[in-house]
């Protein structure tokens, strides 16, 4: 069994101990002993995706600005510092000037400071509305997907009814239920609209999980039903829901802006909010489009940021891309 071609004995002898050779081979292919979980490998792919990086940069910037805005803003956003330059008769607003790079609004408040501080409200509305919507959807979707039968039918009929009403109309109706509109009613209205979307999505992927082999394997193993739902079905169903949550954040910000724009938001304009600023600018949009341009631009960019992140996460979590 000696080789017809033999060279230096520098290498470890090949014959004997194929196991060692295979182990060495496995080690050389760069696989360590610590396993790489699905989430970790998804993150690894995300980090290299430029779409994700752009979206994430926008979001990080947005969150940082929102958190630091009280210090970033040069002026009190509700102080009418430039009131003297406002002339209703001649339809004039304060132009850009030193200390006020974007000028003032129609009552003489600093536009840049209002934009910066306004991000806070927008972030809060988006996050709270999404979290509440997600929580409601998780409960309903898990119930329907895990229990099935009449619970499933009942939950899904309710969800169908809610989905059949246009979302903005539904949000209006909910907002209008309250005698006095406030930031809280906006959050509640936007959240309620999201619940059926999350519920249906989660229920669908839970049902797919219920028929999957690994859930059957857990049943065959005699794992308790509750553990099957919470250890196997739910974690494996969450991927699309998380993606949806990111996309919903964008929608929530737009919806909240729409409600504020239409006067169903916080009437107290001493606390600025982008949608409300946009609404306030509609009277002067012909003469002073910049008053509408800035808040609208902010809404679009932030919504785009969340959408980019959501889309790239959808790709990263797709099991087909797993390696």
């Amino acid at each position, binding site marked *: 069994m000696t080789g017809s071609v033999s060279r230096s004995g520098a290498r470890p002898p090949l014959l004997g101990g194929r196991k060692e050779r295979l182990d060495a081979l496995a080690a050389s292919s760069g696989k360590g002993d610590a396993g790489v979980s699905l989430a970790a490998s998804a993150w690894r792919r995300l980090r290299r995706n430029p779409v994700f990086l752009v979206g994430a940069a926008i979001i990080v910037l947005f969150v940082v600005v929102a958190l630091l805005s009280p210090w970033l803003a040069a002026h009190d956003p509700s102080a009418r510092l430039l009131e003297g330059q406002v002339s209703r008769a001649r339809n004039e607003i304060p132009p850009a000037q030193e200390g006020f790079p974007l000028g003032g609004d129609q009552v003489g408040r600093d536009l840049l400071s209002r934009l910066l501080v306004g991000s806070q409200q927008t972030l809060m509305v988006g996050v709270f509305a999404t979290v509440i919507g997600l929580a409601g959807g998780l409960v309903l979707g898990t119930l329907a997907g895990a229990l099935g039968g009449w619970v499933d039918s009942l939950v899904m009929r309710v969800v169908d009814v809610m989905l059949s009403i246009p979302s903005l109309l539904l949000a209006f109706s909910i907002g209008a239920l309250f005698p006095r509109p406030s930031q809280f009613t906006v959050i509640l209205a936007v959240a309620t609209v999201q619940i059926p979307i999350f519920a249906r999505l989660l229920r669908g992927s839970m049902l797919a999980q219920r028929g999957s082999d*690994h859930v059957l394997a857990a049943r065959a193993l005699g794992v308790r039903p509750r553990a099957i739902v919470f250890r196997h079905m739910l974690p494996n169903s969450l991927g699309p829901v998380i993606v949806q949550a990111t996309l919903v954040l964008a929608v929530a910000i737009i919806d909240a802006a729409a409600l504020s724009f239409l006067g169903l938001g916080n009437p107290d304009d001493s606390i600025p909010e982008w949608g409300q600023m946009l609404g306030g600018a509609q009277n002067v949009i012909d003469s002073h489009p910049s008053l509408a341009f800035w808040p609208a631009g902010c809404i679009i960019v932030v919504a785009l940021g969340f959408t980019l992140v959501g889309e790239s996460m959808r790709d990263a979590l797709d099991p087909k891309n797993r390696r």
Partner: protein
Amino acid sequence: MTSGVDSTTQKSTSDSDVLVAVDGLAVHFPIRRGIVLDRTVGHVYAVDGVDLDIRRGETYGLVGESGCGKSTLGRAMLRLVEPTGGRVVFDGVDLSTLRGESLRRMRRRMQMVFQDPLSSLDPRQSVESILVEGLRAHGLDQGRETTGRRLRELLTSVGLPTTALRKYPHEFSGGQRQRIGIARALTVEPDLVVADEPVSALDVSVQAQVINLLADLQRELGLTYLVIAHDLAVVRHISDRVGVMYLGGIVEEAGSNELYAQPLHPYTRALLSAVPVPDPLLEDRRERILLTGDLPSPAAPPSGCRFHTRCPWRQPERCDTERPALREVAGGHRVACHWAEEIRDGRIQPHEVRPELVEEDGLLSPDTALTGPASVTEVLGP
């Protein structure tokens, strides 16, 4: 006893020998239609009256083509699919009487190995938590250290390095994943393991590793196997006894050598003659019994003998009207054919069969997923 029959097939079946007794088992899946109100418009007779016994320590092979109900039968035996009729007695306990917690505890004793090793492992769990789960569910987790030792032993016995514990299913090759699936089944020290197509998703060169592993584990642990497969060569290689299924029923059952040496049912003969053998000389010489036409839909099985529409030995009247019972022809050799002896002795010659159209209305086709299909192969073919 009859000579030429495997010792395992001898009819010395005392009750204590039998681990699983299946009696008239039936699984009929309802076919539902309608959007608001579900109406049952028919049934798929996936398993339709199966009797079989699996003895302690043996390997019983169940072979058949897609849509014959073999996977559903395996699952119904474990009550992973609810049977419509009949009973399964496991070690003296009628499984159909068990409910909820008592059934769950019974599951410790009967385990399953799946066809697709990747989809049957939860992608989010590490190998360790996959293996610990069964122990926890049955209160067998005896502290970190003892359990850790047990898991490492288990991995070694299925031929995986102990470093595998911290990895995730997607980091392994197909053969290694199947070893994890086998290890999971063994964590709870079962008596019976149902292996549903355990090697058909694996590469040819890896199949033998898993087949040998199953054989080694059986010898070491005294396991009883039910192996379900479409590949007759695999089933014959690992099984002591083999049951051949066609359209929801067992048509022939015999010791594995006996079945190959003298197949009695026309379907078994056709099946055996169709399996390609990697030997050109043999292939050139072989006479094939080519079946014409397709498998009839299990939603509308033919009357009488289910095989009569494709059978080259079909005889008028009786085959079309009377469903043959599974009867013992020789020691331990059972066959469901009216004319088994006549065909064996050459008193009936095969004739040409005109292919009969199998009407498929889209929903009832044997290739389409129906309510609760048992496996991918059951739906798409092997």
